[in-house]
């Protein structure tokens, strides 16, 4: 007590700081404050903008009148919004499913023990993933041009009538976008699933083999259940990424013909930056954020259950 009374304010502060839990808090505080600021400020601004009626060409955003949930109502009652949402989900479903199936097949193939050139081929398979979206988009755009290599091959094989107007017919155009996405992101699925397979314990498989289980039974009853968390993570990450698809659509079709290949992100971009309706775009972004958060929550529930167990 006497020591405390005799110590100066500086010494008291120093002693307080030197306490382990205080010192730790002080170390992490600046970064935490910065990160929360970076996260919170834009989010708050987007939410604020989504509640007012503002476009840059209508004047100052600080003086924009409140529209409350008007923008949300407008978005949710806009048929084009539901069209692009549905289309985006179709792209996500087909692209991610194909990527998963191909990635899994490749992962199973490369997880064999004695495979010549395994390292080389693994590296080659990963190559598309390293390319920028814009390069992939432009490459596939060139491939599927009316007089591009794909039509050339089709004509050579099947005759002049086999050429397809790839970007003119909406189903074909969406197909080319899905194909480009699959080409670029199957390696990602492969990488995660291959790593997951490599990390699985060998004992259950060996035990099953000793007991006479078939390869299919081992795969279905042992490998697949053990790999489930990895599969869920891979699917969630890819689905979220694919749901935000923009570059490929923008470069390959521009969302056309008409709006028949427009994705949700492209629609939001156009609304905000071409039409200047930033409040409406903000409402869409908030809805997108909520949807993704909800879907993700449900998607990763099996993992949480597993942890609790």
């Amino acid at each position, binding site marked *: 007590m006497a020591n405390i009374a005799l110590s100066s304010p500086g010494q008291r502060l120093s002693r307080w700081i030197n306490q382990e839990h205080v010192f730790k808090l002080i170390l992490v505080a600046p970064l*935490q404050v910065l990160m*929360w*600021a970076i996260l919170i400020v834009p989010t708050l601004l987007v939410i604020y903008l989504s509640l007012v009626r503002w476009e840059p*060409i209508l004047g100052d955003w600080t003086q924009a009148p409140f529209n409350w949930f008007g923008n949300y109502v407008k978005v949710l009652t806009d048929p084009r919004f539901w069209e692009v949402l549905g289309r985006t989900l179709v792209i996500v479903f087909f692209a991610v499913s194909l990527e998963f199936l191909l990635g899994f097949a490749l992962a199973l193939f490369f997880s064999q023990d004695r495979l010549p050139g395994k390292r080389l081929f693994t590296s080659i398979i990963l190559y598309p993933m390293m390319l920028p979206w814009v390069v992939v988009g432009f490459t596939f755009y060139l491939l599927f041009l009316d007089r591009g290599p794909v039509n050339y091959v089709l004509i050579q094989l099947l005759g002049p009538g086999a050429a397809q107007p790839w970007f003119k017919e909406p189903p074909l155009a969406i197909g080319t976008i899905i194909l480009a996405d699959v080409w670029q992101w199957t390696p990602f699925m492969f990488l995660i699933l291959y790593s997951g397979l490599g990390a699985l314990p060998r004992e259950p498989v060996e035990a099953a083999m000793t007991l006479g289980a078939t390869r299919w039974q081992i795969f279905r009853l042992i490998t697949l259940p053990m790999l489930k968390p990895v599969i869920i993570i891979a699917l969630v990450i890819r689905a979220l990424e694919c749901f935000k698809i923009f570059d490929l659509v923008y470069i390959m079709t521009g969302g*056309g013909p008409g709006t028949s290949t427009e994705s949700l992100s492209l629609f939001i971009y156009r609304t905000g*930056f071409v*039409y*200047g309706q930033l409040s409406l775009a903000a409402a869409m972004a908030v809805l997108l954020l909520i949807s993704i958060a909800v879907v993700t929550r449900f998607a990763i529930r099996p993992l949480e259950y597993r942890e609790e167990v």
Partner: protein
Amino acid sequence: MATNSELKKLTRREFLKVAGAAGGAIALGSVLEACAPAQPAAPTPAAPTAAPAEAVAGATPEERALNGIKALKAAGKIKDGDTFVIMHHSGQRNQIVPAMEEFNKLTGLNFQNAEVGLEGDIYTKAMNEAVVRSGSYDGFLTFVNWIGDMAEAGLIVDLTDWFAKYNPEIDSGPNAYVPPLDRFTTTYKGRRYAVGADNDAFSMFYRKDMFDDPNEQKKYEDKTGKKLALPQTWDEFDELVAFFDRPDQGIRGTHLYAERYFAYTNWAARFISKGGAYFDDNMDPLIASDIGVETLEKLAKVVRDHMWPDAVTGDWSVAYKRFPEGSVFSAWAWASLGKWAQDPKTSKIAGKVGYMPIPGSIVDGTLYRAIPHVVGWSFSVSRYGKAPEAVYCFFQWFTGPTKGAELISRIGTLDVFRKPWFDLQVFKDAYGAEFLPVLLADTQNAFPDISLRGANEYLDKLNVNLQAAFAGQKTPQQALKDTVDEWQKITDRLGRLGQIEAWRNERKNYPQAIQDLWKKKGVFTS
């Protein structure tokens, strides 16, 4: 003051919550403060205008611009070394950068360029500047039809008084711009907001070697009973491209933009030459009229029967590939396509290129031509820049009759716009002596893009629907009706009265012949 024991009770989670909230609040406060207007923004009528002043002395626009800089220095408004940043598209580098270097030497100022790779990004960045008011840019070289948005956002200065003070010789005298470029590259709601720096009137190019071939001429005469001649009307043009459509030889009749961003160009040229107008005087769209639908039906047939599919699915650059490689008989685009097609380095048909006046429509026995002026570039001055008047002086100097000729004749996306330049050898060398008279005639019949507030959105909705019609997804009626519905929503959202005022001014920037036709047909009476 919290005691140690109280501090210990503060868990890490609680601390982070408080710290996060406090940090967010602090950051939000500073962002809002930074974003808050230095002065209240106001719509166009209240936006600051250049201060009226006595005319500046000088024999030429360039001289007056330089004298203006001297006067601003003398008044202490600017000083040597002051930096001014002008945003522009990368395609203009070869024209802008040398100009800045020379102007800097002449004035002691430091003009710098901020280059943007994608045209659309210029709009985004400019409108961003309208919101954040950072003063990062002192001037912009933007599409002509963005002037309305930038003026309404309070981003750019009304230059009307500086036009009077410095006389850039845009609309009168021997050095004037080709009318009506003088009006629609500079004005919004009747006020000057920009200094026109380009001519983007479209041109029609064709394969002269095929056209002049006596065998082809005989075949055409045998087939149609008419002599092969350059078409005066769009119907004649459609016949011509049908005749020269040779898909079996890898040559289609024509390439007219039918894609996502410029699908409106040919439809608008045909529609307006028949006396059509985008809106009536109450901003009710007129595009879904009988003329509009019939025009689209005919054009969709040409697209379907005589063009490569990538006219619908490609982008603007497809014309710059198709025509020079010889896979289309004719193509329309900006004047620069002529340069590409005539250059053996970029073309397989160099020396075989012809230029035809863009066709029109005959109404009551008179031929009317309407040539779209597609985008085009003009300079505007940021109101948030350091010394807007000095920036205006640079723009006037850049576009002056002598200096401008030197700069615009360089390779770049800015094209010839002052009338006397069409007689200069330097431009004849750049474009070809045969082409310039055709371009001049076309330019005199040029009409502007929709340049109202929300121009991007109006045009985008039209393009989307036209492209859908060209791709066979919508009937012409449906495509135009859908556009009308979308346009009505845009107009109501942005304020019908303001749009009416802007449109009534904008339609006066159309070629006089078209305005006369409108009067004759009773579309507009004033």
